């Protein structure tokens, strides 16, 4: 009896919220409708439909209940039954309690679940006391890999269970579990739910350029946090470029000594190891990119002999502004270059653990090579005179061979392949051009050229987040599908996934996080969730919920709709300071809006009687 009374009380309270949200959304004030909504809800048992985004303008789309996951799982069956948790009496258990990845995940997610000041178990509901996590491989994997298994099943009922084949699936499932929780008046709730989930694509990458602007370590780590909240699994670290060489090499320390912006704008070996470890325990691979033969100006500061002297009027090392500088691309005809790269990548192999290295190879413009008589002579010798894509091919063959001999695999940008060079069959080709859909060269035309040649591909074109315009632009990011090109099923199956890129001409630690998030979340759902999950009006509120979730977790994710994030918004604690490691100051949970309680309550009572 007591339970029924309690459930009625809770039902009424929650219903008010439903009506409230509905009313505010529709700007309507019909009491009859209120009764209708309330009664429907109460008859159909307790329901956790609460809104906390007060949008006053009527907008289309289904509002998701709080505790809606992002990206959308393959199968998500929430029920209207609620459970609660007692922060003082809850534990994670696992068959791999001695595995560092499991231990650290539990340490991370405990404060994420219960760390907000003053949250407590909901009255009238019996709390779940345990999440039982079973990893059926019974193996504590060390590093995430291309072929890792990220699938999992999660059930929250009278008990809560998470099962996965590998620890990586356990991590993804734990993230989902943490998103199902929501707070109401400082009380903790979760809908009873059953989820069967696994990623659509195995490669879900996020790229950061740390050469045009240096991105400090704490910011990179924050970004890895945000990546894990969105189930990204590859950090593509475009670590050096023309502008600077922040990577500290032990073999060639002069590279960063002369090529970095300053001796403080560097990533030392221990910094890189720190990032890799931070990513590893979150199930994120770190693929470094050492872009060659173009984009190598900063290498030339310490080793000018790597670069091609460009000629003007027969004089080597002479720039023609607008065409080339004094020195450009690597001089691919010199054996020195390959000896150097052999030693350099042997070190890279030791520093980075992923099976893949990104070898760049984009935008190796030919003009400087064309001006250089030694290169012309070399090409004549090889009977490839005038055919610079063959020179590019020669370089690709030699360097990919170096990587292959080191026992590593490679990703390259599309350029050599597009130019007609034949690269090794096992090369992963990243398609990056044609993102401006207003242009003729839509990305799918490149995909259609490259995919039939048998390469595995990754799409990046649609997701260049450095390009900005007046919002909302998340929908365009959301609706780009990497398999939407004309090709055979086999070609589409060779699309390993996608990647969102942030070239850093105009970003650094000051603005990179709000520029990524939640725009990158759009990409995350496209790459994780089933293809059919693509309705932007439905996604709109769920991605906003995800953005508010990130804000609570200390990621300054920018707004994409009018509104607010419940009783917490950025800056409610201390103003964000450069010490970004500091956890966010949060208070309470989402709070009931009492705005029309007085209007509805008497009507409710009348109705109930």
């Amino acid at each position, binding site marked *: 009896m007591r339970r029924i009374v309690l459930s009625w009380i809770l039902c009424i309270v929650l219903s008010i919220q439903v009506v409230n949200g509905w009313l505010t959304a529709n700007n309507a004030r019909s009491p009859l409708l209120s009764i209708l909504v309330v009664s429907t809800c109460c008859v159909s048992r307790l329901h956790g439909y609460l809104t906390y985004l007060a949008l006053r303008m009527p907008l289309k789309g289904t509002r998701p209940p709080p505790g809606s996951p992002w990206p959308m799982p393959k199968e998500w069956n929430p029920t209207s039954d609620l459970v609660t948790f007692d922060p003082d009496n809850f534990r994670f258990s696992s068959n791999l309690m001695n595995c560092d990845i499991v231990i650290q995940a539990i340490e991370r997610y405990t404060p994420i679940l219960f760390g907000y000041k003053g949250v407590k178990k909901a009255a009238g509901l019996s709390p779940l006391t345990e999440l039982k996590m079973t990893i059926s491989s019974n193996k504590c994997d060390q590093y995430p890999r291309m072929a890792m298994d990220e699938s999992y099943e999660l059930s929250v009922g009278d008990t809560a269970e998470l099962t996965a084949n590998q620890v990586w699936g356990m991590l993804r499932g734990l993230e989902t579990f943490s998103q199902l929780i929501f707070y109401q008046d400082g009380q903790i709730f979760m809908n009873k739910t059953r989820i069967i989930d696994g990623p659509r694509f195995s490669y879900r990458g996020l790229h950061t350029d740390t050469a045009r602007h240096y991105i400090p370590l704490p910011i990179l780590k924050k970004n890895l946090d945000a990546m894990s909240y969105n189930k990204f699994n590859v950090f593509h670290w475009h670590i050096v470029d*023309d502008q600077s060489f922040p990577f500290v090499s032990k073999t060639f320390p002069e590279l960063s000594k002369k090529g970095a912006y300053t001796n403080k704008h560097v990533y030392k070996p221990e910094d890189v190891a720190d990032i890799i470890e931070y990513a590893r325990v979150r199930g994120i691979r770190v693929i470094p990119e050492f872009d060659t033969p173009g984009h190598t100006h900063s290498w030339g500061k310490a080793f000018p002999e790597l670069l091609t002297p460009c000629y003007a009027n027969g004089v080597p090392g002479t720039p023609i502004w607008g065409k080339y500088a004094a020195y450009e691309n690597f001089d691919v005809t010199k054996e020195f270059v390959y000896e150097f790269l052999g030693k350099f990548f042997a070190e890279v192999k030791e520093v980075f653990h992923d099976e893949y290295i990104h070898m760049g190879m984009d935008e190796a413009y030919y003009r400087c090579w064309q001006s250089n008589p030694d290169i012309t002579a070399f090409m004549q010798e090889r009977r490839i005179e005038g055919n610079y894509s063959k020179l590019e091919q020669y370089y690709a063959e030699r360097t990919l061979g170096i990587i292959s001999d080191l026992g590593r695999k490679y990703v390259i940008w599309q350029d050599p392949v597009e130019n007609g060079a034949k690269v090794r069959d096992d090369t992963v080709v990243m398609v990056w051009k044609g993102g401006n859909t207003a242009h003729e060269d839509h990305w799918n035309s490149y995909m259609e050229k490259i995919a039939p040649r048998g390469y595995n591909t990754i799409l990046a074109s649609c997701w260049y987040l450095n390009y900005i315009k007046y919002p909302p632009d998340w929908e365009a990011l959301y609706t780009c599908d990497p398999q939407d090109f004309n090709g055979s099923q086999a070609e589409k199956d060779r699309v390993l996934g996608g990647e969102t890129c942030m070239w850093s001409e105009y970003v650094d630690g000051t603005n990179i996080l709000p520029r990524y998030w939640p725009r990158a979340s759009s990409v995350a759902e496209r790459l994780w969730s089933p293809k059919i999950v693509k309705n932007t009006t439905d996604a709109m509120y769920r991605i906003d919920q995800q953005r508010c979730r990130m804000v609570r977790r200390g990621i*300054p994710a920018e707004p994409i709709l009018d509104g607010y994030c419940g009783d917490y918004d950025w800056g409610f604690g201390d103003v964000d300071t450069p010490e970004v490691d500091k956890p966010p100051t949060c208070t309470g949970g989402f709070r009931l809006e009492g705005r029309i309680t007085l209007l509805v309550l008497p009507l409710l009572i009348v109705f109930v009687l």
Partner: protein
Amino acid sequence: MTMSSFVGIILLLIAVEIPGSFQHDRGHSKFRGPQVSQTAGTPWPMPLSYHTQATFTYVDAGEFKFTDVDESSSCSILEEAYNRYFPLIFGRRPETLFFKSSFKAPTDAMTELMVKLEKPCKDTDYPMLESDESYTLDVNGNQAMLSASEIWGVLRGLETFSQIVYQSNDGGFVVNNTQIVDKPRFNHRGMLLDTSRHFISVPILMTNLDAMAQNKFNVFHWHIVDDPSFPYQSEKFPKITNMGAYDPETHVYTQTDIKNIIEYARMRGIRVVPEFDSPGHTSSWGYGQPDLLTKCYTGSQPNGQFGPVNPVPNSTYVFLKSFFTEIAQLFPDHYMHLGGDEVSFACWQSNPEITSFMKKMGYTSYSQIEEYYMQNLLNIVGGLGKGYQIWQEVIDNGAKVRADTVVEVWKAGWEAEMEKVTKLGYKTLLSTCWYLNYISYGSDWMAYYGCEPFNFNGTDAQKQLIQGGETCMWGEYVDGTNVISRLWPRASAVGERLWSAKEINSAFLAQSRLTEHRCRMVRRGFQAEPITGPGFCREEFGGV
């Protein structure tokens, strides 16, 4: 002021740098390394007269102090400014300084800045539209003297001094021999923040006031309420706040919050001009103040929707008088902004009460009834002894306003509008060019920098009426997470346009100075984003 009508305009307005085809943007050869080199120790915005020599003097951070030439003319505004500027000059957080200063300053290093204030300041002074912000700054060897007529000039001069001291490669702080005679080109250098579409917390507003002071802005135009929410916590009408705020406990500005903001701004020589926009943009007022808004009709029945403030009943004006009396008491500035923009007539047209009232009054157009409303409101506020700032539509509709009214031009075609408004003899502000909520890829600051408020046909007398301008940050897509990095240093471009001489208008010449200025802001703890292409700051946000 919602922006739908504005999008088209802005596309034309901002020189959008859309890349023809996406590139990795390696840039051309000359752009390897930092795209723009930085100056060292140059001020932003550029002073009216600025002479500097290569000769420099060390400044002894351990011994340095500000000295009043005449202590009796000092006040708390000045004393607090000294406390503020010491860490601004020598490092907000010394441990993050790029060069750890084990440096020992030589014995002939500068140890003080003499400050000469002619008109004694009082603890109760407020900055005004007419305040004198001029100052002179003379650094000669280890002697430095700042003089100004009013406290507001001293504040501007202290900022300039804090910018010309810089850290040299040996770790010591140095200042070049410099003579500056400075005063603003315009009296009103404003920034609008919209705290209705998204709430912005008090600490972030204060951070922004700091940034404004460091760019010599002097008006915080606080667009505090609008359609989406009503965060102003009214004493007389708490129901409006309770029902109109996003969250009446957390997403509100209490009376104390507002007093704190006003005080924080005053200390920095910044006026706070609140905007309570009406009769449009008032949805959020209606939840807690029934019958204030016009009921919209479908056929002969109200359809549950609400439009602008209902201009007909007397109760509207009773309410407005009471409400604005409260506002007038809370905000000390002579001016308040009364809005008056973007009134949609559709709801008025549907409402029979409005129709019959118009018939009674002999009105033939809805802009006449808008004028009727505004005139009543202006009379009420004028009766409270306040001046007002209004959006251009009020004048366009032909309302009679007080002679000291400041008209804010925000629509496209501003040149013609400025010509018209100044011809009518009103003080005028320009904001059309400086809507910073609109974003585009790349160095969009150059367009803001290049917008010249005098570029309209008018006599010298007309141009004299231009009080300055405002840069606007409407809140559709910004909140605490991104407002600071979106504003700064793009707003700095506007800051220089409004402060410096008209001839200081080459973005190319400005970019090295702006790059230093943005890094200076980063060193001082602001999330000022990079806007001049690849490069670095000695101290980066987030570390280094």
